[in-house]
């Protein structure tokens, strides 16, 4: 902001209204819309097939379908472009982004479908509605908040992604910002475009929050919802299975295959094992540092946000939304500016990089902690107080242990995204330090696809660990909370982690004196 303002508002305005800028906005928004729409269709479709039908091997498939989460978009981009050089441009970018981001819709929708009360669907069927009408009028409304939140994640991801569009040479905001930062001494355009990008992302976030349905789910009685009887696919079964296999093929098998191919070719191109280990170690070290620092900061903030409803807590919640909307390129640029000006000692040192990760990922971690604290009934803390434990002891023995899954989710999410994060790492890493992501970037930038393969493979293998962790937390949460009286979460943890929970309707608080009775 300061950087943009410094060179005079006139210059800034000139950059904004340039025709090229306008085209940039349209192109970025077009890509974002296309990616989001495709991800919604694929994500919801897959989620329904794997949870509600008699699809063959649907359990295994349910887990596999979430794994593209571990494939960074630039690795997928690298896999495709190295095989089909003609893929550069809009369609290639679309394909790669969809393949990498549909799990953001798929995972929360799976969780929502598992939680949705199947008796509602049975009632609809018994009232004479067809299964299609039932799906559209009963099922979709139940999963709508989850799907919308997932769609928002995808949109933000598509808008802020830097690696894939760059490798596929499709000029969107992030790529132009990075190029103009790198290629010219005048950094004003970069700053102005960053601001514009931030405005766009915030607009999308606010738009989604506004349009979110207000209808809560009412459920009489505290009985545990049964699992739904699977829908028979009949003669559609082969087609459905084929579609699933296709999605996984495009998003997982193809990148994996390409990597293996380049690995085998690359063995002749002299693999520098020392360099690979160095890069892998650096990746793990900075990602773990980032995860630890971010989670440590997120625990107090998350608890505060969940348990104190006041102005400051609301501001914090808003900051969570805004924070997530900041693309990595923008945060990195801001920190570069800050580092050069005020934090000279740590500029281009590990602490600044870790700080960058914290700024980028704190919202996600806070959201995860906050959501799980909000889900555990406040009553438990009251019971603890009445049994003679002070507020600190209650925090230590009740609140934090109950938030455990949320804290783990937050940490895994930060770990995963920090490993994959490209632009911030690229701009903030210490001179001479390379992570897997930056090595991959350098090698592919110069067309050395075979040399890039080992780094890409190592990165995917590392990223799979937190991705599996996330998937398991995601699917287990449902079964663990059914027995406790905790109200079912409105949105799945992963979405909540990034977006903050949608406030449960009728939460018990000081403003609903007899609220407990109605629950």
């Amino acid at each position, binding site marked *: 902001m300061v950087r943009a303002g410094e060179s005079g508002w006139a210059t800034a305005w000139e950059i904004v209204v340039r025709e090229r800028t306008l085209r940039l906005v349209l192109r970025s928004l077009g890509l974002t819309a296309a990616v989001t729409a495709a991800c919604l269709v694929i994500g919801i479709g897959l989620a329904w097939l794997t949870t509600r039908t008699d699809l063959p091997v649907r359990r295994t498939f349910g887990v596999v379908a979430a794994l593209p989460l571990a494939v960074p978009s630039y690795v997928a981009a690298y896999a495709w472009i190295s095989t089909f050089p003609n893929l550069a441009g809009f369609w290639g970018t679309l394909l790669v982004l969809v393949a990498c981001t549909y799990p953001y819709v798929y995972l929360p929708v799976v969780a929502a479908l598992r939680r949705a009360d199947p008796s509602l669907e049975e009632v609809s069927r018994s009232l004479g509605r067809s299964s299609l009408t039932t799906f559209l009028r009963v099922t979709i409304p139940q999963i709508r908040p989850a799907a919308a939140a997932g769609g928002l994640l995808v949109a933000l991801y598509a808008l802020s992604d830097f690696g894939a569009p760059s490798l596929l040479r499709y000029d969107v905001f992030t790529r132009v910002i990075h190029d103009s930062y790198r290629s010219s001494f005048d950094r004003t355009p970069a700053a102005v475009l960053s601001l514009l990008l931030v405005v766009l992302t915030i607009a999308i976030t606010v738009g989604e929050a506004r349009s979110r349905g207000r209808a809560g789910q009412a459920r009489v009685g505290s009985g545990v919802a049964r699992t739904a009887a699977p829908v028979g696919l009949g003669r559609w079964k082969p087609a459905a299975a084929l579609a699933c296999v296709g999605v996984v093929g495009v998003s997982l098998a193809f990148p994996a295959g390409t990597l293996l191919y380049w690995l085998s070719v690359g063995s002749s191109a002299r693999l520098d094992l020392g360099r690979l280990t160095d890069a892998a170690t650096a990746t793990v070290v900075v990602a773990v540092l980032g995860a630890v620092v971010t989670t440590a900061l997120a625990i107090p903030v998350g608890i505060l946000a969940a348990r104190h409803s006041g102005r400051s807590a609301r501001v914090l919640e808003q900051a969570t939304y805004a924070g997530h909307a900041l693309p990595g390129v923008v945060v990195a640029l801001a920190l570069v500016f800050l580092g050069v000006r005020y934090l000279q000692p740590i500029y281009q040192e590990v602490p600044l990089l870790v700080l960058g990760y914290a700024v980028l990922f704190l919202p996600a971690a806070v959201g995860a902690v906050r959501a799980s604290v909000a889900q555990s009934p406040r009553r438990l803390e009251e019971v603890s107080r*009445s049994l003679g434990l002070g507020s600190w002891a209650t925090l230590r023995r009740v609140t934090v242990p109950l938030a455990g899954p949320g804290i783990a989710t937050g940490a895994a999410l930060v770990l995963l995204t920090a490993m994959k994060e490209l632009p911030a790492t690229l701009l903030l890493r210490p001179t001479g330090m390379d992570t897997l992501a930056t090595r991959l970037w350098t090698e592919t930038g110069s067309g050395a696809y075979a040399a890039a393969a080992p780094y890409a493979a190592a990165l995917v293998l590392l990223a799979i660990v937190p991705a599996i962790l996330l998937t398991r937390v995601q699917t287990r949460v449902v079964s663990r909370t059914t027995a406790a009286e905790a109200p079912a979460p409105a949105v799945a943890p992963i979405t909540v982690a990034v977006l903050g929970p949608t406030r449960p309707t009728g939460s018990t608080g000081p403003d609903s004196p007899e609220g407990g009775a109605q629950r």
Partner: protein
Amino acid sequence: MSHLQIRGVTKAFGDQPVLRGVDLEVPSGRLAAVLGPSGCGKTTLLRVVAGFERADGGSVVLAGREVTGPGTHVAPEKRRVAVVPQEGALFPHLTVAENVAFGLRGGRGARRTGRARVGELLELVGLRGYEDRMPAQLSGGQQQRVAVARALAPQPDVVLLDEPFSALDAALRANVRADVRAALHAAGATAVLVTHDQEEALSTADVVAVMRDGVVVQAGTPKEVYRFPRDVEVARFVGEAVVIPATVRDGVVWTPLGHLPLAQAAADGVGRAVLRPEQVHLVPEGEGLMARVVDRYFYGHDASVALEVRCPGDVLLPVLCRTQGEMPEGDTVGVRIAGPVNWFPGAA
């Protein structure tokens, strides 16, 4: 254990008053039921006593110590008040034994005595052997019993139970209620039970306080509250009531159903009389007043018959009659009213 005194407690949320001066006294070792419809402020009262909410005015004195009062607000953990919330609210991450031991003060040496105490309490609520279960593996009734054991563990001055049985099946409820009551009595605990179920209040408590619109309208033994309600609303709330227009003259209640003795002395005037369905007796047709059978309800242990009584002057009066299970064969019966009735002045 100890005496609980609540005096003039007021509390408002925003500009909406919820408690408007509540007075209640529970003698040491007794179980009091606060009975009221939802929204009457009974849960808020409980939360004020527990220290989860600050009262706007009035005082709460526990075992001679003022815990809530002007300028005084003792923190919940320092009150020696244990709560049993609705649906138990067991800590889901702790085993049954750990839940029960949660409030026990523990140094190293306390661990062994603690384990003995946990066993003793689980014995009390009939769940010995469940120490290592997780709350999710227990039924609703079992969870509720563990919650009671957990509340009793640190030997609190008062135990507060917030509609603890409302989430249980009807069949289970009576059992758990009896067990919990026995456990509370065995521990000699002073307890306050909040409920909207009149049968639960009357059958479980030593003292019943009927609450309405943020005040205690009447407090007394279950018998007093049922037999001598303070007004028509209380009468209707603590049991089924037949309300008929009535006039008092010379200590006798004159009603369309005949003249009846007064339960409580009253001055002459116009008003309403309340009789209980068990005071209405069916007699062979031709005796007493004639009545038409409108509906029959069979409950097993007893039965109710809805009647339309033809009173002198051709006035038709709806009356509910409770029987031991027998029901009239035909469509018309005779009716006779027995026993004293409560009468309240005011327009019919």
